[in-house]
């Protein structure tokens, strides 16, 4: 009897021990158990042309089409996010890649609207042309509920883009000189193949490895992350791709020089049908060295003309 009693005692003591252990564990895990608090849909709006988007109207579309990657809470922690490279945008920090506005500022509603419609090439963000314009506008409003920045800050002012000058071999040549001078090749490589000396070390702002854009890889209609037109390329390097290593050059490139850089960058897309590649072919595929025809009038004038950049 006494022996059985001892066994019983040990068993009960053991059970109590295990129970208390389980209790501690579940207490620690408590925040993970049960439903998360619901998302508070603030009455945010977006304005694209004459369309007004309302956050409340995008709730089901966001859950159906966006939350899988961007997460119910907009924090880029959707259930697919772990499998994606590059990672989805985290709307809680309101840092956006594709903007017409200066680095560090919020994008315009139109910028976000265009990103949804265009998708982001070389990423898992598809072209959402299944949505109506109203649905897209509503989603633009919806992603504003995740960051308080949208309540305290206004969107940045879009940069001014002068009219594009004609594509000439001189323009391409000056663009090439700028590409060298501004050291774009440090990341993008001398032939724009994304293989510059710093390329292998690059990380985004969340410390995930990231590759510089490979201009040469695309086909006949190759696109950039933030668009496909010459104006889109202009915006990309002038405003920077926020959240990535690509900085803004707005303070260091003059507006007209920027167009020359655009023309050169087009020639790096070797398979693409473009005016720039036609001009280059007409010049037998050779970009002449850049000759500065308008040296600055200051102290530099006594230097030999053609000193270049």
């Amino acid at each position, binding site marked *: 009897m006494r022996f059985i009693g001892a066994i019983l005692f040990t068993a009960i003591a053991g059970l109590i021990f295990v129970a208390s252990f389980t209790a501690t564990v579940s207490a620690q895990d408590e925040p993970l158990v049960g439903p998360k608090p619901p998302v508070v849909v603030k009455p945010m709006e977006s304005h694209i042309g004459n369309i007004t988007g309302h956050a409340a109207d995008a709730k089901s579309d966001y859950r159906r089409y966006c939350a899988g990657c961007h997460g119910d809470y907009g924090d880029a922690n959707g259930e697919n996010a772990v499998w994606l490279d590059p990672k989805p945008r985290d709307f809680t920090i309101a*840092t956006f890649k594709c903007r017409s506005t200066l680095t560090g500022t919020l994008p315009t509603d139109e910028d976000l609207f265009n990103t949804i419609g265009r998708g982001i090439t070389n990423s898992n963000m598809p072209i959402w042309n299944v949505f109506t314009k109203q649905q897209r506008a509503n989603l633009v409003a919806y992603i504003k509920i995740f960051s308080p920045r949208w309540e305290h800050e206004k969107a940045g002012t879009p940069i001014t883009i002068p009219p594009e000058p004609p594509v000439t071999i001189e323009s391409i040549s000056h663009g090439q000189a700028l590409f060298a001078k501004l050291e774009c090749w440090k990341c993008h490589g001398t032939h724009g193949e994304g293989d510059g000396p*710093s390329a292998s070390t*690059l990380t985004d702002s969340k410390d995930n490895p990231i590759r510089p854009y490979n201009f040469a890889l695309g086909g006949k209609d190759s696109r950039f992350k933030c668009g496909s037109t010459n104006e889109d390329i202009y915006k990309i390097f002038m405003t920077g791709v926020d959240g990535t*290593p690509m900085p803004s050059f707005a*303070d260091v490139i003059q507006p007209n020089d920027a167009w020359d850089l655009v023309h050169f960058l087009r020639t790096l897309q070797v398979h693409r049908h473009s005016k720039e590649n036609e001009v280059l072919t007409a010049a037998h595929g050779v970009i002449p060295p850049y000759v500065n025809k308008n040296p600055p009038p200051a102290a530099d004038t006594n230097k030999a003309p053609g000193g270049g950049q």
Partner: protein
Amino acid sequence: MRTNKILVALLTLLVCPSLMLAGTVSGKVTYTGTPAHQKPIDMSKEPSCAKQHATPISTETVVTGANNALDNVVVYVSAGATDEGQVPAQAITYTQKGCQYIPHVLPMHVNQEFDIINDDQTSHNIHPLPKVNTEWNKSQPPGTPPIKEKYDKPEFIEVKCNIHPWMHGWFVVLKTSHYDLSKEGGDFKLPNLPPGKYTITAWHEKYGTQTADVTITGNETKDVNFTFKATAY
């Protein structure tokens, strides 16, 4: 005449008592244990920077001096300061030279303007990584003017250059100008503290923070020392 002078003196006393009585907190920051070994930086990919250093410089995550002195610690008044919002007018500078940030840690007041300078023959991109303030990323080729910036919220912000991945520094944005950076043997000094109770915080990028409470009653110097526990990794 004489009464006038007395009046002025009295007025001065009334208006700025802090000018009359101001204490100082000073001391030394040291470490115990073995600090992490700093690795030499290979700058061969950037010859214009590599040639500026006769011997390769090392990473600056932990910089120590003689007698266990710990450098690059920001010592500041974290509670009790009365100068919140009094933004200093003088410009402070953050220089990129030899592919290194000088200083490695730049403390500043909220909304204080600072100049970022490129003294190198290569392009840098200045990419601070704030979580609370706004993130931006700007290119600065050689010979371009300084970039003027400021931050409107207190935060410890890591700074990097994506082109030169070894470049690493900090912006420390504080609600006060009562700060100092420990250097030259771990010494720091916080002068011009009006009488009052203060919390002094010492922050190191790897070893975290420590605090101490002091009370300043008049023209006095209070000794406060901080000792961080160094870890090898």
